[in-house]
Protein backbone atom coordinates (compact mmCIF):
# COMPACT_ATOMS: atom_id res chain seq x y z
CA UNK A 1 0.00 0.00 0.00
CA UNK A 2 2.73 2.42 0.96
CA UNK A 3 4.76 2.07 -2.19
CA UNK A 4 1.67 2.07 -4.36
CA UNK A 5 0.30 5.21 -2.79
CA UNK A 6 3.62 6.97 -3.15
CA UNK A 7 3.57 6.15 -6.80
CA UNK A 8 -0.04 7.26 -6.99
CA UNK A 9 0.81 10.66 -5.68
CA UNK A 10 4.23 11.06 -7.27
CA UNK A 11 2.71 13.01 -10.11
CA UNK A 12 4.67 12.50 -13.21
CA UNK A 13 5.38 15.94 -14.48
CA UNK A 14 5.34 16.52 -18.21
CA UNK A 15 8.71 15.69 -19.61
CA UNK A 16 9.04 12.33 -17.92
CA UNK A 17 6.65 10.66 -20.29
CA UNK A 18 8.09 7.30 -21.23
CA UNK A 19 6.86 4.58 -18.93
CA UNK A 20 7.72 1.10 -20.12
CA UNK A 21 4.39 -0.43 -21.00
CA UNK A 22 5.39 -4.01 -20.31
CA UNK A 23 5.89 -3.10 -16.68
CA UNK A 24 2.28 -2.03 -16.32
CA UNK A 25 -0.38 -4.49 -15.40
CA UNK A 26 -3.09 -2.52 -17.12
CA UNK A 27 -4.41 -2.01 -20.64
CA UNK A 28 -3.67 1.09 -22.60
CA UNK A 29 -6.37 3.11 -24.28
CA UNK A 30 -5.63 5.02 -27.41
CA UNK A 31 -5.65 8.71 -28.14
CA UNK A 32 -8.46 10.09 -30.14
CA UNK A 33 -8.02 12.43 -33.05
CA UNK A 34 -9.38 15.79 -33.97
CA UNK A 35 -11.69 17.79 -31.83
CA UNK A 36 -13.97 15.03 -30.71
CA UNK A 37 -15.19 15.80 -27.25
CA UNK A 38 -15.97 12.35 -25.96
CA UNK A 39 -14.35 11.47 -22.69
CA UNK A 40 -12.87 8.30 -21.32
CA UNK A 41 -12.74 5.45 -23.75
CA UNK A 42 -14.14 2.54 -21.76
CA UNK A 43 -11.00 0.87 -20.63
CA UNK A 44 -12.10 -2.68 -21.20
CA UNK A 45 -12.99 -2.00 -24.83
CA UNK A 46 -10.07 -0.06 -26.15
CA UNK A 47 -7.53 -2.63 -25.09
CA UNK A 48 -4.62 -2.70 -27.43
CA UNK A 49 -1.66 -4.90 -27.58
CA UNK A 50 1.43 -3.60 -25.90
CA UNK A 51 3.34 -2.95 -29.10
CA UNK A 52 2.37 0.67 -29.77
CA UNK A 53 4.69 3.35 -28.36
CA UNK A 54 3.30 4.75 -25.15
CA UNK A 55 2.80 8.17 -23.77
CA UNK A 56 1.29 9.49 -20.61
CA UNK A 57 -1.14 12.36 -20.51
CA UNK A 58 0.60 15.17 -18.58
CA UNK A 59 -2.68 16.44 -17.13
CA UNK A 60 -4.49 13.32 -15.95
CA UNK A 61 -1.75 10.72 -15.96
CA UNK A 62 -3.57 8.23 -18.19
CA UNK A 63 -1.33 5.91 -20.14
CA UNK A 64 -2.15 6.06 -23.80
CA UNK A 65 -0.97 4.33 -26.91
CA UNK A 66 0.45 6.58 -29.56
CA UNK A 67 -1.81 6.60 -32.63
CA UNK A 68 -0.49 5.55 -35.98
CA UNK A 69 1.08 8.07 -38.30
CA UNK A 70 -1.61 8.02 -41.01
CA UNK A 71 -4.35 9.89 -39.21
CA UNK A 72 -4.50 13.67 -39.37
CA UNK A 73 -5.48 16.31 -36.84
CA UNK A 74 -4.48 17.08 -33.29
CA UNK A 75 -4.36 14.31 -30.69
CA UNK A 76 -6.34 14.81 -27.56
CA UNK A 77 -6.44 12.76 -24.42
CA UNK A 78 -9.78 10.92 -24.41
CA UNK A 79 -10.10 11.38 -20.69
CA UNK A 80 -9.22 14.99 -19.93
CA UNK A 81 -9.20 16.54 -23.41
CA UNK A 82 -5.59 17.65 -23.05
CA UNK A 83 -3.97 18.38 -26.40
CA UNK A 84 -1.11 15.94 -26.76
CA UNK A 85 0.10 16.88 -30.18
CA UNK A 86 -0.44 19.71 -32.60
CA UNK A 87 -2.33 19.26 -35.84
CA UNK A 88 0.81 19.75 -37.89
CA UNK A 89 3.83 17.56 -38.13
CA UNK A 90 6.96 18.98 -36.58
CA UNK A 91 9.62 19.91 -39.12
CA UNK A 92 12.79 20.62 -37.16
CA UNK A 93 14.73 22.13 -40.08
CA UNK A 94 12.27 24.88 -40.90
CA UNK A 95 11.54 25.62 -37.25
CA UNK A 96 15.27 25.84 -36.57
CA UNK A 97 15.56 28.35 -39.40
CA UNK A 98 12.76 30.40 -37.85
CA UNK A 99 14.48 30.26 -34.46
CA UNK A 100 17.74 31.51 -35.94
CA UNK A 101 15.98 34.41 -37.66
CA UNK A 102 14.24 35.28 -34.39
CA UNK A 103 17.62 35.34 -32.67
CA UNK A 104 18.99 37.68 -35.36
CA UNK A 105 16.09 40.10 -34.87
CA UNK A 106 16.13 39.83 -31.13
CA UNK A 107 19.29 41.82 -30.36
CA UNK A 108 18.19 44.95 -32.30
CA UNK A 109 14.74 44.56 -30.69
CA UNK A 110 16.44 44.90 -27.30
CA UNK A 111 18.68 47.88 -27.92
CA UNK A 112 17.07 49.94 -30.68
CA UNK A 113 14.47 52.52 -29.57
CA UNK A 114 10.91 51.22 -29.47
CA UNK A 115 9.29 54.62 -29.73
CA UNK A 116 10.16 58.27 -29.93
CA UNK A 117 8.29 60.95 -28.06
CA UNK A 118 8.31 64.60 -29.06
CA UNK A 119 6.94 67.27 -26.76
CA UNK A 120 7.62 71.02 -26.77
CA UNK A 121 10.72 70.69 -28.86
CA UNK A 122 12.18 68.02 -26.62
CA UNK A 123 12.39 64.47 -27.77
CA UNK A 124 13.09 61.22 -26.07
CA UNK A 125 13.53 57.62 -27.13
CA UNK A 126 13.35 54.45 -25.10
CA UNK A 127 14.38 50.89 -25.89
CA UNK A 128 13.33 47.69 -24.18
CA UNK A 129 16.48 47.67 -22.07
CA UNK A 130 15.78 51.27 -20.98
CA UNK A 131 12.41 50.15 -19.59
CA UNK A 132 14.05 47.40 -17.59
CA UNK A 133 16.83 49.64 -16.29
CA UNK A 134 14.37 52.39 -15.36
CA UNK A 135 12.61 50.13 -12.87
CA UNK A 136 15.84 48.75 -11.40
CA UNK A 137 16.21 51.93 -9.36
CA UNK A 138 15.49 52.10 -5.66
CA UNK A 139 12.66 50.11 -4.10
CA UNK A 140 11.38 49.00 -7.48
CA UNK A 141 14.33 46.66 -7.92
CA UNK A 142 12.14 43.50 -7.58
CA UNK A 143 9.91 44.74 -10.41
CA UNK A 144 12.99 45.57 -12.46
CA UNK A 145 14.37 42.09 -11.89
CA UNK A 146 11.01 40.59 -12.86
CA UNK A 147 11.07 42.61 -16.08
CA UNK A 148 14.64 41.46 -16.71
CA UNK A 149 13.52 37.87 -16.23
CA UNK A 150 10.38 38.00 -18.37
CA UNK A 151 11.62 40.27 -21.16
CA UNK A 152 15.34 39.51 -21.48
CA UNK A 153 16.45 36.31 -19.76
CA UNK A 154 13.49 34.02 -20.46
CA UNK A 155 13.17 34.92 -24.17
CA UNK A 156 16.93 34.25 -24.50
CA UNK A 157 16.53 30.91 -22.72
CA UNK A 158 13.61 30.13 -25.00
CA UNK A 159 15.66 30.80 -28.13
CA UNK A 160 18.64 28.81 -26.88
CA UNK A 161 16.67 25.79 -25.69
CA UNK A 162 14.42 25.70 -28.77
CA UNK A 163 17.51 25.93 -30.95
CA UNK A 164 19.32 23.17 -29.07
CA UNK A 165 16.32 20.80 -29.09
CA UNK A 166 15.42 21.43 -32.72
CA UNK A 167 19.06 20.94 -33.70
CA UNK A 168 19.05 17.56 -31.99
CA UNK A 169 15.72 16.66 -33.60
CA UNK A 170 17.03 17.10 -37.13
CA UNK A 171 17.52 13.97 -39.16
CA UNK A 172 21.10 12.82 -39.02
CA UNK A 173 22.31 15.37 -36.51
CA UNK A 174 25.40 14.21 -34.65
CA UNK A 175 25.49 13.72 -30.90
CA UNK A 176 23.10 11.99 -28.62
CA UNK A 177 19.95 12.97 -26.81
CA UNK A 178 20.20 16.51 -25.42
CA UNK A 179 20.29 16.91 -21.67
CA UNK A 180 16.74 16.79 -20.17
CA UNK A 181 17.54 20.18 -18.66
CA UNK A 182 17.08 21.74 -22.12
CA UNK A 183 13.53 20.42 -22.31
CA UNK A 184 12.75 21.74 -18.82
CA UNK A 185 14.14 25.13 -19.80
CA UNK A 186 12.07 25.11 -22.97
CA UNK A 187 8.86 24.34 -21.07
CA UNK A 188 9.44 27.02 -18.45
CA UNK A 189 10.55 29.69 -20.91
CA UNK A 190 7.36 29.22 -22.94
CA UNK A 191 5.40 30.38 -19.96
CA UNK A 192 7.70 33.02 -18.49
CA UNK A 193 8.82 34.78 -21.65
CA UNK A 194 6.30 37.59 -21.96
CA UNK A 195 7.39 39.62 -24.96
CA UNK A 196 3.98 39.10 -26.58
CA UNK A 197 2.29 40.77 -23.62
CA UNK A 198 4.90 43.53 -23.70
CA UNK A 199 3.85 44.22 -27.28
CA UNK A 200 0.27 44.88 -26.17
CA UNK A 201 1.74 47.06 -23.42
CA UNK A 202 3.51 49.15 -26.08
CA UNK A 203 0.22 49.61 -27.92
CA UNK A 204 -1.50 50.82 -24.76
CA UNK A 205 1.38 53.10 -23.76
CA UNK A 206 1.39 54.64 -27.23
CA UNK A 207 -2.34 55.37 -27.16
CA UNK A 208 -2.03 56.82 -23.66
CA UNK A 209 0.78 59.12 -24.78
CA UNK A 210 -0.92 60.03 -28.03
CA UNK A 211 -2.83 62.98 -26.61
CA UNK A 212 0.04 64.60 -24.71
CA UNK A 213 2.83 64.31 -27.27
CA UNK A 214 3.53 63.06 -30.74
CA UNK A 215 4.65 59.45 -30.73
CA UNK A 216 6.48 57.74 -33.57
CA UNK A 217 7.32 54.04 -33.57
CA UNK A 218 11.02 53.26 -33.72
CA UNK A 219 13.04 50.57 -35.50
CA UNK A 220 13.18 48.46 -32.32
CA UNK A 221 9.42 48.09 -32.40
CA UNK A 222 9.54 46.65 -35.90
CA UNK A 223 12.18 44.08 -34.90
CA UNK A 224 10.22 43.19 -31.77
CA UNK A 225 6.93 42.66 -33.63
CA UNK A 226 8.56 40.36 -36.17
CA UNK A 227 10.54 38.49 -33.49
CA UNK A 228 7.38 37.91 -31.43
CA UNK A 229 5.44 36.68 -34.46
CA UNK A 230 8.22 34.25 -35.40
CA UNK A 231 8.44 33.00 -31.82
CA UNK A 232 4.68 32.42 -31.76
CA UNK A 233 4.93 30.32 -34.92
CA UNK A 234 7.76 28.24 -33.45
CA UNK A 235 5.94 27.77 -30.15
CA UNK A 236 2.69 26.72 -31.79
CA UNK A 237 4.39 24.20 -34.04
CA UNK A 238 6.98 22.87 -31.58
CA UNK A 239 4.77 21.58 -28.77
CA UNK A 240 7.07 20.30 -26.00
CA UNK A 241 5.48 16.85 -25.73
CA UNK A 242 5.55 16.36 -29.48
CA UNK A 243 9.18 17.52 -29.65
CA UNK A 244 10.10 15.16 -26.82
CA UNK A 245 8.58 12.19 -28.67
CA UNK A 246 10.35 13.17 -31.87
CA UNK A 247 13.67 13.40 -30.03
CA UNK A 248 13.13 10.01 -28.45
CA UNK A 249 12.28 8.47 -31.81
CA UNK A 250 15.41 10.00 -33.40
CA UNK A 251 17.81 8.88 -30.73
CA UNK A 252 16.40 5.45 -30.05
CA UNK A 253 18.66 3.59 -32.39
Amino acid at each position, binding site marked *: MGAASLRLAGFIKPGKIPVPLHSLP*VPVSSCCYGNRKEVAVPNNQAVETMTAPALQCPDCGTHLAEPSRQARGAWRCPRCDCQLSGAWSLRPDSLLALTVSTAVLWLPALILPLMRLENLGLDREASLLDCVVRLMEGVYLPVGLLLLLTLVIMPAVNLLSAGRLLWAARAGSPGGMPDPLWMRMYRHSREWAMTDIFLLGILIAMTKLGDMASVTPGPGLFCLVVAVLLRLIVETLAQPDQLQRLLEARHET
Partner: protein
Amino acid sequence: MKPNAPAAQQRTLAWSLLVAATVWLVPANLLPIMAVTEAGRGKPTTIADGIWQLFEAGMPGIAIIVFVASLLVPLFKVLVLAVIYWRAARENNPLLSTRAYRLVYWIGRWSMLDVFVVALLAAVVEFGSLARVEPGPGVLAFALAVVLTMLSAHAFSPQQLWLQDTDGADHGYT
Protein backbone atom coordinates in the same frame (compact mmCIF):
# COMPACT_ATOMS: atom_id res chain seq x y z
CA MET B 1 -0.37 6.91 5.43
CA LYS B 2 -3.14 8.67 3.55
CA PRO B 3 -3.24 7.75 -0.12
CA ASN B 4 -2.94 11.34 -1.25
CA ALA B 5 -0.66 12.82 1.36
CA PRO B 6 1.79 14.44 -1.11
CA ALA B 7 -1.24 15.79 -2.99
CA ALA B 8 -2.38 17.43 0.21
CA GLN B 9 1.10 18.88 0.72
CA GLN B 10 1.00 20.20 -2.81
CA ARG B 11 -2.34 21.84 -2.07
CA THR B 12 -1.02 23.41 1.11
CA LEU B 13 1.76 25.09 -0.83
CA ALA B 14 -0.65 26.17 -3.56
CA TRP B 15 -3.09 27.54 -0.98
CA SER B 16 -0.46 29.53 0.88
CA LEU B 17 0.88 31.09 -2.33
CA LEU B 18 -2.68 31.93 -3.32
CA VAL B 19 -3.42 33.57 0.03
CA ALA B 20 -0.22 35.61 -0.24
CA ALA B 21 -1.25 36.71 -3.73
CA THR B 22 -4.69 37.76 -2.48
CA VAL B 23 -3.12 39.81 0.31
CA TRP B 24 -0.88 41.63 -2.17
CA LEU B 25 -3.82 42.31 -4.49
CA VAL B 26 -5.29 44.73 -1.94
CA PRO B 27 -2.42 47.29 -1.94
CA ALA B 28 -1.99 46.65 -5.67
CA ASN B 29 -5.45 48.06 -6.31
CA LEU B 30 -5.46 50.77 -3.64
CA LEU B 31 -1.97 52.30 -3.96
CA PRO B 32 -1.01 54.36 -7.00
CA ILE B 33 0.85 52.37 -9.64
CA MET B 34 2.44 55.48 -11.09
CA ALA B 35 2.61 59.24 -10.64
CA VAL B 36 2.41 61.59 -13.60
CA THR B 37 4.20 64.87 -12.87
CA GLU B 38 3.34 67.66 -15.25
CA ALA B 39 4.82 71.15 -14.75
CA GLY B 40 5.77 70.38 -11.16
CA ARG B 41 2.37 69.05 -10.07
CA GLY B 42 2.30 65.35 -9.34
CA LYS B 43 -0.80 63.24 -9.95
CA PRO B 44 -0.79 59.69 -8.61
CA THR B 45 -2.90 57.15 -10.53
CA THR B 46 -4.21 53.80 -9.40
CA ILE B 47 -5.13 50.98 -11.78
CA ALA B 48 -8.80 52.00 -11.77
CA ASP B 49 -7.89 55.65 -12.44
CA GLY B 50 -5.85 54.63 -15.46
CA ILE B 51 -8.78 52.69 -16.90
CA TRP B 52 -11.13 55.61 -16.29
CA GLN B 53 -8.70 58.00 -17.99
CA LEU B 54 -8.64 55.77 -21.06
CA PHE B 55 -12.44 55.78 -21.13
CA GLU B 56 -12.56 59.55 -20.88
CA ALA B 57 -9.94 59.95 -23.57
CA GLY B 58 -12.39 58.21 -25.92
CA MET B 59 -10.66 54.84 -26.17
CA PRO B 60 -13.19 52.37 -24.77
CA GLY B 61 -11.68 49.40 -26.63
CA ILE B 62 -8.25 49.80 -25.04
CA ALA B 63 -9.91 50.62 -21.70
CA ILE B 64 -11.79 47.35 -21.78
CA ILE B 65 -8.60 45.39 -22.58
CA VAL B 66 -6.81 47.00 -19.64
CA PHE B 67 -9.84 46.48 -17.40
CA VAL B 68 -9.99 42.78 -18.23
CA ALA B 69 -6.24 42.20 -18.01
CA SER B 70 -5.48 44.13 -14.85
CA LEU B 71 -8.66 44.11 -12.75
CA LEU B 72 -10.86 41.23 -13.84
CA VAL B 73 -8.26 38.55 -14.60
CA PRO B 74 -6.34 38.70 -11.27
CA LEU B 75 -9.56 38.52 -9.23
CA PHE B 76 -11.12 35.86 -11.45
CA LYS B 77 -7.93 33.83 -11.34
CA VAL B 78 -7.70 33.86 -7.55
CA LEU B 79 -11.38 32.88 -7.22
CA VAL B 80 -11.22 30.06 -9.77
CA LEU B 81 -8.03 28.64 -8.27
CA ALA B 82 -9.57 28.77 -4.80
CA VAL B 83 -12.63 26.84 -6.00
CA ILE B 84 -10.42 24.27 -7.77
CA TYR B 85 -8.21 23.73 -4.70
CA TRP B 86 -11.25 23.57 -2.43
CA ARG B 87 -12.91 20.90 -4.52
CA ALA B 88 -9.73 18.93 -5.28
CA ALA B 89 -9.90 16.75 -2.17
CA ARG B 90 -13.18 15.18 -3.28
CA GLU B 91 -13.41 16.11 -6.90
CA ASN B 92 -16.56 14.96 -8.70
CA ASN B 93 -16.15 16.71 -12.03
CA PRO B 94 -12.45 16.50 -12.88
CA LEU B 95 -12.93 17.39 -16.52
CA LEU B 96 -14.54 20.74 -15.70
CA SER B 97 -11.92 21.57 -13.08
CA THR B 98 -9.06 20.62 -15.40
CA ARG B 99 -10.47 22.86 -18.12
CA ALA B 100 -10.86 25.75 -15.69
CA TYR B 101 -7.30 25.18 -14.47
CA ARG B 102 -5.91 25.24 -18.01
CA LEU B 103 -7.81 28.43 -18.81
CA VAL B 104 -6.63 30.20 -15.68
CA TYR B 105 -3.07 28.98 -16.17
CA TRP B 106 -2.80 30.66 -19.55
CA ILE B 107 -4.66 33.89 -18.95
CA GLY B 108 -2.69 34.60 -15.75
CA ARG B 109 0.35 35.84 -17.68
CA TRP B 110 -1.66 38.63 -19.29
CA SER B 111 -2.01 40.46 -15.97
CA MET B 112 1.61 41.53 -16.32
CA LEU B 113 0.35 43.99 -18.93
CA ASP B 114 -0.04 46.84 -16.43
CA VAL B 115 3.49 46.42 -15.08
CA PHE B 116 4.83 46.66 -18.63
CA VAL B 117 2.80 49.78 -19.37
CA VAL B 118 4.15 51.50 -16.24
CA ALA B 119 7.73 50.53 -17.16
CA LEU B 120 7.29 51.88 -20.69
CA LEU B 121 5.73 55.16 -19.58
CA ALA B 122 8.36 55.67 -16.89
CA ALA B 123 11.15 55.07 -19.39
CA VAL B 124 9.77 57.26 -22.17
CA VAL B 125 8.23 60.21 -20.33
CA GLU B 126 11.25 61.84 -18.75
CA PHE B 127 11.39 65.51 -19.66
CA GLY B 128 13.04 66.77 -16.50
CA SER B 129 10.76 69.16 -14.62
CA LEU B 130 8.27 69.50 -17.49
CA ALA B 131 6.79 66.04 -17.43
CA ARG B 132 7.81 62.81 -15.74
CA VAL B 133 6.25 59.48 -14.95
CA GLU B 134 7.41 57.80 -11.75
CA PRO B 135 6.46 54.25 -10.82
CA GLY B 136 4.32 54.00 -7.68
CA PRO B 137 4.32 51.44 -4.85
CA GLY B 138 1.21 49.79 -6.29
CA VAL B 139 3.21 48.36 -9.17
CA LEU B 140 5.43 46.45 -6.74
CA ALA B 141 2.41 44.89 -5.00
CA PHE B 142 0.74 44.15 -8.32
CA ALA B 143 3.80 42.41 -9.79
CA LEU B 144 4.13 40.33 -6.62
CA ALA B 145 0.45 39.35 -6.73
CA VAL B 146 0.70 38.24 -10.36
CA VAL B 147 3.87 36.22 -9.82
CA LEU B 148 2.49 34.60 -6.66
CA THR B 149 -0.71 33.50 -8.44
CA MET B 150 1.36 32.06 -11.28
CA LEU B 151 3.55 30.17 -8.81
CA SER B 152 0.46 28.94 -6.97
CA ALA B 153 -0.97 27.50 -10.17
CA HIS B 154 2.45 25.94 -10.79
CA ALA B 155 2.51 24.27 -7.39
CA PHE B 156 -0.74 22.48 -8.11
CA SER B 157 -0.71 19.55 -10.48
CA PRO B 158 -4.01 18.84 -12.29
CA GLN B 159 -3.24 15.12 -12.12
CA GLN B 160 -4.49 15.06 -8.55
CA LEU B 161 -7.94 16.06 -9.77
CA TRP B 162 -8.19 12.67 -11.44
CA LEU B 163 -7.26 10.48 -8.50
CA GLN B 164 -10.86 10.00 -7.39
CA ASP B 165 -12.21 9.49 -10.87
CA THR B 166 -14.08 6.20 -11.16
CA ASP B 167 -12.92 5.73 -14.71
CA GLY B 168 -9.40 5.80 -13.43
CA ALA B 169 -9.02 2.05 -13.49
CA ASP B 170 -6.75 2.34 -16.50
CA HIS B 171 -4.47 4.67 -14.66
CA GLY B 172 -1.78 2.16 -13.98
CA TYR B 173 -1.70 3.11 -10.34
CA THR B 174 -4.25 0.79 -8.79
